[in-house]
């Protein structure tokens, strides 16, 4: 009985606090959300930085009691130092982190949590999932698989395909695995899979070499939109017309523009949106403002981006 009364009292107090804060009569206690992300070294991380900064502006404007601090780091070691600095300078109510690597960041994040900080992990998981309160990530296998399903259907389960892969990482492996598993169940032949390091230039030269090597190519899949731009230039220059589809993935704005315009060779893309950092920051902010508790794992799907839904995935001001 007493506990219930106490709880009710607590709720009342909380409610009155919120009311007071809303009128702005009383300076409410500041809530600090730290955001630790990789520095912008290529298109996708550039997008992450953009969306994190957008979230910072929007949330701070909407909720004056929340302070969002965005810190970018150029390497895993630098990110560990950044975490130490952030935790030393102030009490963190929440940490939203996109870890450089799983292994190196697990320990440092655990230490931040020990001080009672709410932990939200984005994209790359930590080796110990028990540390995180919230996990938001995309689905790399689906990026490959959904593209492959669409392609198989369009090609009628027949044809010859070449693939360009990125930098040897788990992300790259999962995308390739998702793609090849689906294709294996069809009569489509994968002629070649080579690394082009998610680099436009290397994709351009690799595609030129594919074109020289194979007289008949029905479709190309580059597992990232940055590479797709290099592929398209190589195809265009070669004058080859038998290539029906050239697809990418990741939802780069230049490629989304092609999808919106109904490009016949690149009619779809699949998102692995850097905006997932923004989704995570908003979810965390929700519990400090409207008391909307958020716990658990959220796997963002990789639905096909088509001309119909492309505007949802289009950020004209983002660098990516």
């Amino acid at each position, binding site marked *: 009985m007493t506990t219930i009364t106490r709880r009710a009292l607590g709720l009342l107090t909380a409610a009155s606090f919120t009311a007071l804060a809303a009128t702005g009569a009383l300076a409410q206690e500041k809530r600090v959300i730290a955001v630790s992300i990789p520095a*912008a070294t*290529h298109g996708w991380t550039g997008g992450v930085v*953009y969306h994190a900064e957008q979230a910072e502006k929007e949330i701070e404007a909407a909720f004056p009691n929340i302070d969002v601090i965005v810190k970018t780091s150029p390497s895993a070691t630098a990110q560990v130092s950044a975490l130490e600095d952030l935790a030393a300078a102030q009490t963190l109510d929440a940490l939203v982190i996109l870890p450089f690597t799983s292994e190196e960041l697990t320990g440092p994040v655990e230490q931040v949590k020990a001080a009672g900080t709410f932990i939200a992990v984005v994209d790359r998981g930590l080796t110990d999932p028990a540390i995180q309160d919230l996990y938001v990530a995309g689905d790399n296998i689906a990026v490959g698989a959904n593209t492959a399903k669409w392609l198989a259907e369009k090609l009628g389960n027949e044809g010859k395909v070449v693939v360009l892969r990125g930098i040897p990482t788990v992300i790259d492996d999962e995308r390739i695995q998702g793609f090849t598993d689906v294709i294996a169940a069809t009569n489509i032949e994968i002629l070649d*899979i080579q*690394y082009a390091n998610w680099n436009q230039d290397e994709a351009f030269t690799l595609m*030129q070499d594919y074109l020289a090597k194979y007289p008949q190519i029905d479709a190309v899949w580059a597992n990232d939109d940055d590479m797709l731009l290099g592929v398209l230039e190589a195809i265009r220059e070669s004058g080859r017309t038998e290539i029906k589809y050239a697809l990418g993935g990741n939802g780069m704005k230049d490629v989304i523009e092609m999808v919106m315009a109904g490009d016949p060779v690149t009619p779809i893309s699949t998102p692995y949106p850097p905006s997932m950092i923004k989704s995570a920051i908003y979810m965390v902010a929700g519990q400090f403002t409207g008391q909307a508790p958020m716990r658990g794992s959220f796997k963002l799907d990789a639905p096909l981006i088509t001309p119909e839904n492309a505007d949802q995935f289009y950020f004209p001001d*983002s660098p*990516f």
Partner: protein
Amino acid sequence: MTAAVASESAGPRRIRLADMGPFIALAVVILAGVMINSSFLSGTNIANVVTRSAFVAIIAVGATFVISSGGLDLSVGSMMAFVTGIMILAMNRLEPSMGGYAIVAGAGIGLVVGALCGLLNGLIVTVGKIEPFIATLGTMGIFRALITWMSDGGSIPIERTLREPYRPVYFGNVMGIPVPVLLTLVVVLVGAFVLYRTKYGRRCMAAGSNADVARFSGVSVAKVRTMAFVIQGLCVAIAAICYIPRLGAATPTTGQLWELQVITAVVIGGTALRGGKARVWGTVAGALILEVIANLMVLSNMVSEYLVAAVQGVIIILAMLAHRFIK
């Protein structure tokens, strides 16, 4: 001129088997290509490979100056990205008022910026007396960060209206010879003339083979080396001019690790990494060898995609060893 300098300058005129090393290696690699895949010799493939080797070849001509005069430049890849970014921004800015001429003006600005970047490297090395390795490692980071900052980590695309008029500079050809290849030839001819036929070229060799002797014989080693870095900067800008129309954008990954390809091309070509000896035509052969090897890795089905870099490394080392034994 001292006797040492005179004998060095007489060197290139004699034809020795050792000097033919890079060209023999190139012939061997091409022969291997023909045996591995018949499509290797197709006109398109050869044109592709030679055209794309133009960037590394042009930059490597500049590097031949820097290395033979006793310097080293690690910043060329990042500098290339930075100059490309500046040029595209300048062209986009000038396009509304100048139309197609913005390309020419932008290219001019690129050359100036390239030369200034080279001058910066040169002054840090000569006036600041910092080891070239460390000095250019520093500017490598600076140029790379600047292009990343200018593009917000994304890309800096050229205006659509400029793309079409600019395209021929990479994709066009004069009497069947791709424009970048012609540009490379001009750069190499000028480079060879300056290195082998002018006073400056001889001073480069002198500064590279023995800086103290050169100094005693009245050569301003600092001036010679600074000038070599400026030439390097100009070469980077020329490469950037024919790079932009290829993909029409500069990104933070533009020119990544090119410095290593450039240095490899120079050394495969027979220029001594410790200075004092320059082989401009060898440098071009070196650039071609690297590009042909990369091409063959894709055309052949023998090498696993995971092992491509290892095989490339082995071939380069074998080429250098063969070179050593021919001597």
